[in-house]
């Protein structure tokens, strides 16, 4: 019997090898890929839509000058090369012989038109705030364009590579007017076919695409709001791909040969933020004690159950400028250490088990949403219990996201703590380290909700923003993260994982760390 099993295992392994070898050569063309996801797009044009439901679709239809591949490297798309002309000007050579889906040629004027419409439109594009100092584009000749920034802007390349920077056809915009947002025309490997509100969006292969043409004939993006129903659609074969799969079913699906679970570390860090501008959290020892009090590994193992990765710092590993903050070494889970640090800060155990100082109990108010980020409510509760073990009381207020958003965005901030997730949208450290930790970036200007203030950090992030030397920038951001690691104003909890489940016959799909970048042109169906 044992031998039979061994033989079987050997055979399976051999088959797998053959299968893998076969896959490399036998790409098949044709077929329709059906995707189920929870919500309908707001719009199919980036100027009105920066959230995932629309981005998933238009990322396959519109292309920018540059793109970010799944290894988080900047790659050419509609531009073939670039040259830094001055600290505020980068010159791009454009790809020749590219046509929009409507047959009109792609050129420098289209680039100028796209950015002018987005940045100077009334109102400006919804991504305008994401684009930082981007001022617009100037036509040099038909296939050369200068990208201009208001001030020297280091993150410019990754900004131009963002999912929402797709170039649109000026002719189509003129012709369609407001309807363009429901039927966009770009240069991408897929083109628009139909959008039935709250039902589906259909795109099909663009046969005049400049690069490798898409392998699929069509892609149907269906709306299935209910998680259980989405998983059933995959199981019955009504769908080939599920976005936002049910985390509870992943362990079973990983083992099931009928499905493939695609996963990669994302770029969002979910954390419990600390208000460093308000006592008692203005004392760094109290903040450090809180970090020691939290068993991050237990949260990952027991609450996230493999659907998230560890938080290695305030940035996710895929982000340019990321440095591992060595949190496990600096702040291991250690209740005794936590209590000792609180003791150093003058807090002593009170009669009810809660620490106190001068008659004041160590009680922290905490604002959190439930359902905004995976398991945010559960995590907040778990940390609340862990705090209690070291004599810290957390009074949690759970509100709907819109209400939390308004309060966290408010000034002054009343709660001591808040649960948030931060995604570095342009994949450049500037985006997070500047807006979150520069002392002038407190709300409503920026997102320094922790009211963190350190002149050295201010200097470093300013310097890194103005430099176009990427090696130098990386070094500066490294130093910022070293400082932040000592003065922690967050309890980083986890880094999101991007997880997509397909049926096993869906091949060639590469999941991207940036949720919005759902690239489907290399995907094919093995019938």
């Amino acid at each position: 019997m044992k031998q039979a099993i061994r033989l079987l295992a050997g055979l399976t392994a051999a088959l797998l090898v053959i299968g893998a070898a076969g896959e490399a050569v036998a790409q098949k063309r044709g077929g329709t890929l059906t995707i189920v996801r929870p919500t309908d797009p707001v719009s199919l044009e980036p100027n009105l839509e920066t959230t995932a439901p629309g981005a998933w679709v238009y990322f396959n239809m519109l292309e920018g000058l540059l793109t970010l591949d799944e290894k988080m490297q900047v790659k050419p798309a509609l531009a073939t090369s670039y040259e830094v002309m001055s600290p505020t000007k980068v010159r791009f050579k454009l790809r020749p012989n590219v046509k929009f889906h409507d047959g009109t040629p792609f050129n420098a004027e289209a680039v100028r038109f796209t950015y002018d419409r987005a940045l100077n439109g009334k109102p400006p594009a919804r991504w305008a705030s994401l684009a930082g100092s981007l001022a617009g584009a100037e036509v040099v000749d038909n296939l050369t364009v200068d990208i201009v920034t208001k001030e020297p802007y280091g993150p410019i390349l990754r900004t131009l590579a963002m999912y929402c920077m797709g170039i649109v056809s000026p002719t189509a915009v003129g012709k369609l007017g407001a309807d363009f947002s429901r039927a966009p025309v770009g240069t991408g490997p897929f083109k628009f076919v139909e959008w039935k509100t709250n039902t589906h969006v259909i795109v099909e292969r663009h046969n005049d695409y400049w690069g490798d043409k898409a392998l699929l004939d069509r892609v149907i993006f269906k709306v299935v709001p209910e998680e259980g129903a989405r998983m059933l659609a995959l199981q019955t074969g009504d769908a080939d791909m599920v976005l936002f799969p049910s985390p509870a079913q992943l362990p079973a699906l990983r083992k099931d040969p009928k499905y493939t679970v695609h996963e990669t570390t994302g770029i969002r860090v979910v954390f419990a933020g600390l208000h460093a501008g308000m006592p008692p959290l203005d004392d760094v020892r109290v903040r450090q004690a809180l970090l020691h009090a939290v068993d991050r590994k237990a949260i990952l193992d027991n609450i996230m159950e493999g659907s998230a990765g560890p938080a290695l710092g305030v940035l996710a590993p895929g982000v340019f400028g990321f440095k591992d903050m060595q949190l496990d070494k600096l702040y291991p889970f250690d209740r005794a250490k936590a209590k000792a640090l609180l003791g150093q800060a003058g807090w002593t155990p009170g009669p009810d088990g809660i620490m106190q100082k001068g008659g004041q109990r160590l009680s922290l108010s905490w604002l959190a949403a439930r359902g905004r980020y995976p398991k945010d409510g559960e995590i907040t509760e778990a940390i609340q219990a862990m705090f209690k073990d070291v004599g810290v009381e957390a009074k949690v207020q759970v509100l709907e996201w819109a209400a939390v958003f308004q309060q966290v965005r408010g000034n002054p901030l009343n709660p001591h703590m808040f649960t948030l997730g931060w995604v570095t949208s342009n994949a450049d450290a500037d985006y997070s380290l500047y807006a979150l930790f520069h002392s002038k970036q407190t709300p409503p200007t920026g997102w320094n909700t922790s009211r963190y203030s350190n002149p050295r950090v201010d200097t470093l992030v300013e310097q890194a923003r103005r430099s176009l030397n990427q090696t130098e920038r990386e070094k500066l951001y490294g130093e910022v993260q070293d400082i932040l690691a000592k003065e922690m104003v967050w309890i980083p909890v986890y880094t999101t994982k991007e997880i997509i489940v397909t049926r096993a016959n869906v091949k060639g799909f590469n999941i991207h760390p940036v949720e919005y970048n759902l690239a489907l042109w290399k995907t094919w169906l093995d019938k």
Partner: protein
Amino acid sequence: MLTFIVRRLLLAVPVLLGVVFVVMLTVDLLPGDAVSLMLGEHATPQAVAALRDHLGLDKPLATRYVQYVGRLLTGDLGRSIQQNRPVASELADAWPATLELTVAALILAAFFGVGAGVVSAVWPSSFFDTLARLGSLFGLSLPVFWTGLVLIVIFAWWLPWLPVGGTGSPSHLVLPAVALALPSTAMIARMTRSSVLEVLREDYVRTARAKGVRERWVVTKHALRNAAIPVLTLLGLQAGQLMGGAVLTETVFAWPGLGRLMVKAIFARDYVLLQGAVLVFSLAFVLVNLIVDLSYGALDPRVSRQG
């Protein structure tokens, strides 16, 4: 008759104006702001202010109300804040789906509810009566998102007869209509049962039986017609509730109806879209109630239509 209808429709106008005001006020009082939700975490305060200004959201509530009603009088429902698309188009996309689902569920609920109720009342404490009462207890207690999923598991997965969700063919309608109809069927069955039981104890039923009318006639002609009024009232209310209460069913079965549109509008604080959807609901509710009132007269000549 015509005066009655016109009067009732005119009375609907202040109702609808009130509805608009309440919706506007509620969205205004809710924490959270449409523009900052739309622009997301990363928006600069300037960008938020500019968009608020562009959308006219910086104006006081009263001004916005007057403007909205003014536009409404010209038949303009405005543009959705979040999607920058005419609300009328959004509603036109969603409304037929909701109507289709509601009508199907209502027909199912009326047919099976009244049927089961009458049989239960005619043979009280019989095996069928016990079964129907137990069934209606389940129907009332089980939440639709659960029954919906169970129906999908049984009829779309184990027995792959029907699609998991979505629209497109009559077969797509079956499961959502059944799931949506279940609680209403149960309620109508209970109401019909008690109403028929009560009427069967009336003197005129005894008289009818005494003069030798066949039992079938007693039930259908004498009892049922008189028992129908409370059932009809309930049916009218259910029609309104089915339309508005279809949110969960629409969610489970990916049905592109008004309920989901409204939930989306609420989460985005898109008061223009929300108002449009609520207006349609209110109008439908008013109409259904009018139809119910009119049919009272048809069932019972004593109900006066003059006035």
